[in-house]
């Protein structure tokens, strides 16, 4: 277990940099996390992050397809907002664990 210091807060993260305690998240911390990925967060980004956080809280497993069906963004827009690995990157910024497949 590691810690990250962002805006003077000590954030607990795992080896890959994902939050281990989603309640430590705040919008300001997200903005700083996003900078490390070279992303400037817009309202649209936050809509996605909030969607991911609410699904995580409901214990719904996440997938790219699910985000694409969320009504928040379609898959193309999701890739445009978080280039590279959209689900992995957005989950990191949203302060939730890395999404996993179960089978």
């Amino acid at each position, binding site marked *: 277990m590691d810690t990250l210091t962002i805006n003077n807060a000590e954030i607990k993260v795992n080896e890959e940099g994902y939050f281990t305690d989603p309640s430590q998240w705040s919008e300001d911390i997200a903005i700083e996390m996003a900078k490390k990925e070279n992303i400037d967060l817009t309202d649209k980004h936050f809509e996605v992050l909030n969607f991911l956080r609410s*699904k995580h809280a409901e214990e*719904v*497993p*996440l*997938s*790219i*397809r*699910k985000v694409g*069906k969320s009504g928040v963004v379609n*898959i*193309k827009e*999701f*890739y445009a907002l978080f*280039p*590279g*690995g*959209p*689900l*992995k990157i957005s989950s990191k910024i949203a302060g939730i664990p*890395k*999404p*996993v*497949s*179960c*089978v």
Partner: protein
Amino acid sequence: MKKLLILGAGTAGTMMLNKLDKRIDKEEWDITIIDKDNTHYYQPGFLFIPFGIYQPSDVVKTRKEFFPKGTNFIMDEVEEINAADKEVILKSGKELSYDLLVIATGTKPVPSETEGLDGPLWYKDIFDFYTFEGATLLAKKLRDWKGGKLVINLAETIIKCPVAPLEFAFLADAYFTEKGIRDKVDIQYVTPLSGAFTKPIATKMLSQLMEEKNIHVVPDFYIEHVDNENKKIVSYDGLEVDFDLLVSIPTNMGSEMVENSNMSDEDDLNFIPTNKHTLQHKEHENIFVIGDATNLPTSKAGSVAHFEGEILIENILDFMNNKPLSANFDGHANCFIETGFGKAALIDFNYTTEPLPGQFPIPILGPMGLLKETRINHMGKLAFKWVYWHMLLTGKSLPVSTNMSMSGKKAPKKEENKEKEEPQQEEVLL
């Protein structure tokens, strides 16, 4: 008389019919099973058809020959379940009421979910092998194919028999080697996962095998469309992979009937939200779901349907007797992985324990090596066909425990005293 309806007479539906027939009170309950047609395919055999290892006739029987005498079988398509009124509406317009419903409508590939996949090249240079038609047409194609770029692509991460695409890659390597044209075939395995498989220890073993067999893995590739004109697949982030022959595992979806009944999951894949331990529908207590039709976080496989069946029969009997549901499914899955040249590997896992190396006890044939390539595992894979027709479908118990056992497995050190409720799963969707 109370009415029990089973929707779908594939692996799980047929098996449940046989189990129920032996155990329920027939003075009180009347069972009916529904499917579109009377053809039962042994789907695991589809893997072997493209390479001429099985002939089409090896995998086809009628559904009826596996039903107990006197079964009410309706050949029709289910359009919709109206759970509020406890009735099922069929395509013919017929309505059937029920007191207890078992949904076993499985999953099927839906190529139209990916733009261009079932376009002009479909069944010319693009094939699936998850259907009887796809597998038999691909066999014809491979017979005369002179080589080039063979691309195996998974459109989505949730597919039935998640090891089958890997097995296809291994068998393709063996097939072209034996034909003497392996040097003319470039095999690429293009997947939306971050590696060859989902769970870490198995992925390590399987990635190594891929490398040894000179199969190139392209990870993190989420297909957006197929460019038929230039023969390439294109991902959402603009990566391109050229192909001469594309073997696709299209998006797997549950029956349209699920969507019509407003029972789909949030992925819109038409898998039904199901209690992962009791197999009861999450919203309706008189509906149970089994097999590939569920949204359970385990593999969609015939072996899983079997283990679920052992649990479900107990819970249905409890339900009929107004008792609390007593049996608990642990997500147990057991899959042979055919690796080519007469060998196979075996994995055995559940919701909380990933596939581990070691030995798996099976009477007579076994013990079998876990996560290693052996000839005995290959015998096991071939024997599964006999087991499927003669034991699994007829609802007999198999000499394998229903809940996963740690006996013979070698757990990595740090796992030993870790308490785990949640699946410790690992891999990674983009």
